[in-house]
């Protein structure tokens, strides 16, 4: 696919400015709710590595509780990469919680479950582990979903999409790469192909059917720049791709919102009862 605007131009960010804002965000929003530490799942991938690095800088490495939660089919390299990240950042030894027993115990009852169902279940088991450890360690659960995933709905609702704070939710995957390079995360973590590692050999780009660099460009021009279809065509995107991404964007809107409440009274939560979350903080 040929584009008249290069991804480098449209998606380039000042990593120093972004780093400063995100450190302030983590420090401020964690502290305001009475916490001084965070807990996160370290997968060995780039998103969680970047969040861990930002949290370590914002709060101090000793204030970050890293948790590795492998399933028996997870790649051993993922765990090794997660450990490399934790040690490079000077974090405590990661807690390792093997989620195989709890996932398998459940699917013993549903042996025919497909891998999508199993993948979602794993994501939700990890969420329940993190929220339990949040209580145990008095640490706020910090999320790692990026803007590309959130817009495409490439995540599990109430699974990896559940957390208290999300520093990366307004950064496209391409920009996450730029941040990871700027913060000098381990090369292996930055360079390996992104994967949810829910089953062996899984790859984000294979599963999605397009490359992050390309879809990020389209999303940027569709969402941030609000370009018309004609303008998108002129940028070199074909109709089929525009339709596919547009459909994903629309169909996954529900994942980005709270559950719908049936309107009855004069003041319904989040419709005409609107208060900031940082109320009084």
């Amino acid at each position, binding site marked *: 696919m040929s584009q008249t605007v290069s991804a480098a131009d449209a998606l380039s*960010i000042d990593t120093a400015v972004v780093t*400063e804002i995100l450190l*302030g965000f983590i420090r*401020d929003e964690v502290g305001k709710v009475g916490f001084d530490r965070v807990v996160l799942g370290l997968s060995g991938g780039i998103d969680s590595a970047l969040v861990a690095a930002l949290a370590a800088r914002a709060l101090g490495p000793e204030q970050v509780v890293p948790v590795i939660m492998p399933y028996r089919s997870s790649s051993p390299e993922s765990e090794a990469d997660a450990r490399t990240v934790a040690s490079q950042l000077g974090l405590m030894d990661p807690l390792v919680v093997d989620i195989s027993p709890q996932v398998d115990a459940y699917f013993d009852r549903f042996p025919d479950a497909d891998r999508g169902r199993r993948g979602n279940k794993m994501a939700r088991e990890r969420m329940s582990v993190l929220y339990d450890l949040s209580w145990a360690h008095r640490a706020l659960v910090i999320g790692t979903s990026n803007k590309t995933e959130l817009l495409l709905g490439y995540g599990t609702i109430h699974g990896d999409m559940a957390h208290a*704070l999300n520093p990366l939710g307004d950064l496209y995957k391409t920009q996450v790469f730029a941040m990871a390079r700027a913060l000098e995360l381990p090369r292996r973590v930055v360079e390996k192909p992104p994967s949810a590692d829910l089953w062996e050999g899984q790859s984000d780009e294979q599963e999605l059917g397009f490359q992050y660099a390309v879809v990020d460009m389209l999303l*940027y021009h569709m969402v941030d720049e609000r370009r018309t279809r004609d303008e998108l065509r002129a940028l070199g995107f074909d109709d089929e791709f525009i339709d596919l991404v547009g459909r994903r964007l629309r169909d996954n809107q529900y994942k980005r919102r709270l559950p719908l409440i049936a309107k009855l009274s004069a003041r319904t939560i989040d419709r005409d*009862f609107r208060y*900031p979350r940082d109320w*009084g*903080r």
Partner: protein
Amino acid sequence: MTDQGGSDGGDSPEFVIQMAGRPDDNLSPRRGVPADAPQASRDMVEAQEGDVVVVLAQIAPRLGDVAANLERHLAIIEDARRGGGHLVVFPELSLTGYFLKDLVPDVALRGDAPELVALAAACTGIDALVGLVLESEDARFHNAAVYLSGGRAVHVHRKCYLPTYGLFDEHRYLAAGDRLRAFEAPLSAARPRRPWRAGALICEDMWHPSAPALLARQGVDVFLCPSSSPGRGIVQGAALGTALSYDSMTRTYAQLFTSYLVYCNRVGFEDGVGFWGGSRVVGPQGAPLADPLGSEETLMWHRLDLGTLRRVRISYPLLRDERHDLIDNESDRLRRRRTLD
């Protein structure tokens, strides 16, 4: 030529702060300033007789907690007064925080609110411009800046342009102001050789150049611009997009209206949105008097003097040459044409 003063009583606020005894003694000031407040810049302020020492209070108000913010204001005003400051400028909605949503009626203050009485009482020997939600008798809520001096409110500006687009939702909750009036800032502690004229613009007001132009026509020596500007725009290049916009506006207005411009933006985060700070004073030639602040809580001290204004206005007599007759004629013509449509 300026349209100063006027018979419409443009200088007087529409409410009187009543002095209901002494302010609550329990509001003993906790340390209002972080320990690393820039003492260096304060040492550089060698005030000559008649100069005005302005203190920019770049703070992070606590959202919806007027009592905590009031305590903070009183502490900062007291610190500034003791340090020789003549005017403290606080950010937009400094007593309440910004993204209030349905909290607006809960945090709003009437003109006779004890919080305002306490603040006014603290403003003796020093002036202050504070930001708050001001409630009218008929339950309209304004995003307002109140200028306090000599124990009373001498001017109130109600934000005229309420942004209701993008991440902003002000018009849903607030009423728009309908007047832009310059006023005389007493600054009695500074004992200036003539009164300073000031005009207040709150954040989005600055994005409409007719607003500073209208104030300048009434005579303005210093624009006071409190702000709660959320930082955004990371893609464009070397700096935060919002910061670039305000940099350009503050320089341009100060230069074109040959006036000082005090820009005090808040810092901190609300619901994930960061306010970028960058408070500064721009001199009448369009250059900041010092590097703008970063995004930390800080007090910034600056010295303003009428002599500089005079010198710049001799070199650049832009105010003298302003064609009010031309503007009036063209405005009248446009208004007539619109009536005919």
